[in-house]
């Protein structure tokens, strides 16, 4: 086989790709039973007869999951089917408790949508969405012996805690004509989906925990020859690379698959239509099941569940809860707030954008709001190992704090102390300022006394100031600030010092 680079492959062939994204919903319970939907519990402690597939058990759909799926579908511009239903996808596998997966097949709840994806240079690509459907996750196999992978393992262990966790699977239509930008579009598409599910609040969007997982389909077809339209060239055989679970890995997997397939094609060898496993360590893929006989899933309508028939009124109500598209919101806020690209990107990455927005809405200046959330609060969240949004302070309180600074009631340093009090549960910023006595000393007579005391203690400094070395006043300012435990307005102190020394400010 011929060795090719991605760039060479994309020059010689027209890539066609599609992505299936599985989004794990952050509902309190699983898709079809009341077991907690939480990551990281002891094995087989979040299981019940339903998600263990015990004889006699029956599924009942989680209302919140249906709601989340519809909201996601609406965000992707999908139509919501008047009557959709669940089906059984039958196949035997030890992590699949019932040996069938409850999924949606011929009548998915959300279908026919499209999503605008913004690339790094600002170009917008519209990706067609074929469907978004609900299904349940499988359990988790751990392989023992050998190298810890499935191949060469002596035996395996199964934990069903993840079994039955609600998923929405979003399937794109085939995406063509992206050429060398294929990998970038794929990455940006998944990033956009991740941003949307986070903005909707239906998933934590953590790819590293598997909350958002992608399967990447790719095929290559010959470039159209002169006089022929590219649309008339049939698609090539595709590979489906499973479980590509980071944005970088999506790009890498496409690079690898494109190069691999191009190498085969140029050597006159066929590309096999198959599923492939992604290997993060080597950046390569290997074939999935050795059996090439196509699986026959024997789909049929799930008889234990009833059709999902959302009323028009309910769909419209849900539509009303859809937040602004994250990319649009970013562009708008960047403009409104005068943020740099970096400011916006950092805020997005820190999950701070909506917190900043809420703080601005509560009256703070955008830069001040950004400074609090991306500075002091980001550090605190980091130290406490919690999400920014779960810190015990509200955007309204941050705005109140900044208001106190703006009014000169406190200075920046006192504001940090006040924030500390708020985070410690001592009350609102105003209450903390009051109870801790953090207010700036604005009574001139008190300041004058403190200045006089400091000048008396350091006569040499007074001499220097009177000599014209005005910057020497800094030492006295420091002493006064110390004496007033930081509660003095440094600017005012400086004015008083210069007055007392008889020098013009």
């Amino acid at each position, binding site marked *: 086989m011929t060795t090719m680079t991605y760039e060479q492959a994309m020059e010689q062939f027209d890539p066609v790709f599609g992505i299936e994204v599985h989004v794990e919903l952050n509902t309190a319970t699983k898709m079809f039973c009341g077991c907690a939907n939480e990551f990281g519990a002891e094995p087989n402690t979040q299981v019940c007869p339903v998600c263990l*597939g*015990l004889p*006699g058990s*029956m599924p009942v759909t989680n209302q919140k999951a249906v709601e989340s799926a519809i909201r996601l579908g609406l965000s992707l511009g999908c139509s919501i089917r008047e009557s959709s239903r669940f089906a059984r996808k*039958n196949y035997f596998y030890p992590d699949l408790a019932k*040996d069938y997966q409850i999924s949606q097949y011929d009548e998915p709840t959300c279908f026919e949508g499209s999503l605008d994806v913004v690339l790094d240079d600002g170009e917008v690509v519209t990706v067609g969405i074929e469907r978004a459907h609900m299904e349940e996750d499988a359990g988790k196999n751990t392989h023992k012996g050998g190298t810890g992978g499935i191949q060469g393992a002596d035996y395996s262990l199964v934990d069903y805690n993840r079994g039955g966790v609600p998923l929405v699977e979003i399937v794109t239509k085939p995406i063509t004509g992206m050429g060398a930008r294929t990998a970038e579009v794929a990455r940006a598409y998944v990033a956009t989906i991740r941003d949307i599910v986070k903005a909707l609040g239906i998933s934590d969007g953590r790819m590293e925990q598997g909350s958002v997982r992608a399967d990447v389909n790719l095929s290559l077809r010959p470039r159209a020859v002169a006089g022929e339209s590219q649309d008339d060239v049939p698609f090539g055989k595709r590979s489906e690379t499973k479980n590509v679970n980071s944005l970088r890995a999506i790009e890498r997997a496409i690079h690898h698959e494109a190069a691999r397939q191009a190498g085969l094609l140029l050597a006159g060898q066929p590309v096999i239509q198959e599923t492939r496993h992604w290997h993060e360590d080597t950046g390569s893929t290997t074939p999935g099941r050795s059996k090439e006989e196509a699986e026959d899933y024997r789909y049929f309508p799930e008889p234990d569940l009833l059709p999902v028939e959302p009323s028009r009124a309910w769909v419209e109500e849900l539509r009303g809860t859809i937040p602004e598209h994250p990319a649009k919101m970013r562009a708008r806020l960047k403009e409104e707030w005068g943020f740099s690209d970096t400011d916006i990107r950092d805020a997005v990455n820190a999950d701070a954008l909506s917190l900043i927005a809420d703080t601005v809405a509560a009256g703070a200046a955008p830069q001040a709001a950004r400074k609090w959330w991306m500075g002091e609060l980001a550090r605190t969240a980091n130290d406490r190992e919690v999400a920014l949004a779960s810190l015990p302070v509200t955007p309204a309180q941050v705005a109140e704090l900044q208001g106190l600074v703006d009014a000169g009631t406190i200075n920046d340093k006192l504001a940090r102390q006040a924030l500390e009090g708020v985070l410690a549960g001592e009350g609102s910023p105003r209450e903390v300022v009051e109870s801790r006595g953090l207010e700036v000393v604005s009574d001139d007579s008190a300041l004058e006394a403190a200045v006089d005391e400091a000048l008396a203690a350091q006569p040499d400094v007074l001499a220097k100031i009177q000599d014209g070395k005005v910057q020497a006043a800094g030492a006295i300012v420091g002493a006064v600030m110390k004496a007033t435990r930081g509660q003095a307005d440094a600017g005012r102190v400086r004015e008083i010092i210069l007055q007392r020394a008889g020098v013009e400010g």
Partner: protein
Amino acid sequence: MGAARDWTRATAAQMAAAMKAGEVTSVELTQAHLDRIAAVDGDVHAFLHVNAEGALATAREVDEARAAGEELPPLAGVPIAVKDVLVTQGMPTTAGSRILEGWEPPYDATVTRKIRENRMPILGKTNMDEFAMGSSTEHSGYGPTRNPWDLERIPGGSGGGSSASLAAWEAPLAIGSDTGGSIRQPASVTGTVGVKPTYGGVSRYGAIALASSLDQLGPCARTVEDAAYLHEVMGGHDPMDATSLDEPVPSCVDAARQGREGDLAGVRVGVIKELSGDGYQAGVEQRFEEGLEKLKALGAEVVEVSCPSFDYALAAYYLILPSEASSNLAKFDSVRFGLRVEKSTVEKTMGATRAEGFGDEVKRRIILGTYALSAGYYDAYYGSAQKVRTLIQRDFAAAFEQADVLVSPTTPTTPFKIGERIDDPLAMYLNDVATIPANLAGIPGMSLPSGIAPEDGLPVGFQILAPAHEDARLYRIGAALEKALHDDWGGALAAQAPELEVAP
């Protein structure tokens, strides 16, 4: 206390009344049934598991509660037999299959819970065709149950254990499950009463699924009134079963009471033309006709109705059932519970386990269902069968325009001999020709005894069908007919069964 009375011959309603009146205790009742089981079940083999200690413990608690003046549910203290299709914590549950031998479920079915809440001692788990696939209980992984009327004959199926336990006076009440007639057909061939409620009327949660869109649990008893009491215990909405009806439990007991008053004036009874004639035994038709005469005598108007699509019901049923079953039975894979025949890989282990754990009938139906659902055949088989289902529902809808209830013989013949049809699945399937349409349409049905076929001295069943949600009608008409027949017979039909030999 009076002279030793054989309490096993009483009805459940009589037992409940006697306990209330202080004439008997639940412990005495329960012990009497356990003794009877010990005496006759060696021959009948109605039970797969006898829960002697558990039943007596419940009985003692009920007696103490009653002595303490506690308010108790109507059937508290009345013992009951439970088909092994229901999961029961603390008791093995096998669904008649070797693949589940020794399995003790970590949870209770909703109906199991209701039985416990109604404080009914559970005598044990009754035998059944493996995973309820069969009409004779010969397909049990644990050996056949025998018909107390003639131990050489089948007690019906799949609920042959439940029906035989009633006919053998081992239990006054039993739970059944009816996918294509598995409550009504065993009732018919053992001279007992069985009711399949409207689909969704009783929760299926914890009933080991055969065909999810057809399965329905229901009461088995020796009288219509007893069945009514049990129906009210079992029924009602269950949030654990999405297909459960969210509506009040039908007033079965009141309806039965009303029926016994014997006035059916204004009631239209429709005789289904397609469920007679070819294949129907002479004595079966004779007793059926006599039942119709009784109904007329009570004031009912008898009309003939036609349900032409019934000719396709059996075929549709034997596509829908195996298809759903092939999927429902996939979970028996050796991973989480049940049998494991260990091989080098999971796949081989699954294949070997299922080969050893499942009997022939189960394998046949799984393969058939796998075929009917497989790529390229779905539309021709499963899809077409679901369309037939629509046609059958339309037939019923039209028939119920003309009649309040529909009637037919429950089974075309009296019980056949054990082994007679075991290698001829198609002949076996014909048993259910009259019961299957109700399951396809989801409507309720009852079988009650209508006499003994003169040619063989074996019991004959009379089937009544009502529109969906109208279960109470079955009890009204059934109780009226039953009373008229009992007046002729001088008591329940079961009393005419030959006495079983009692083990020393």
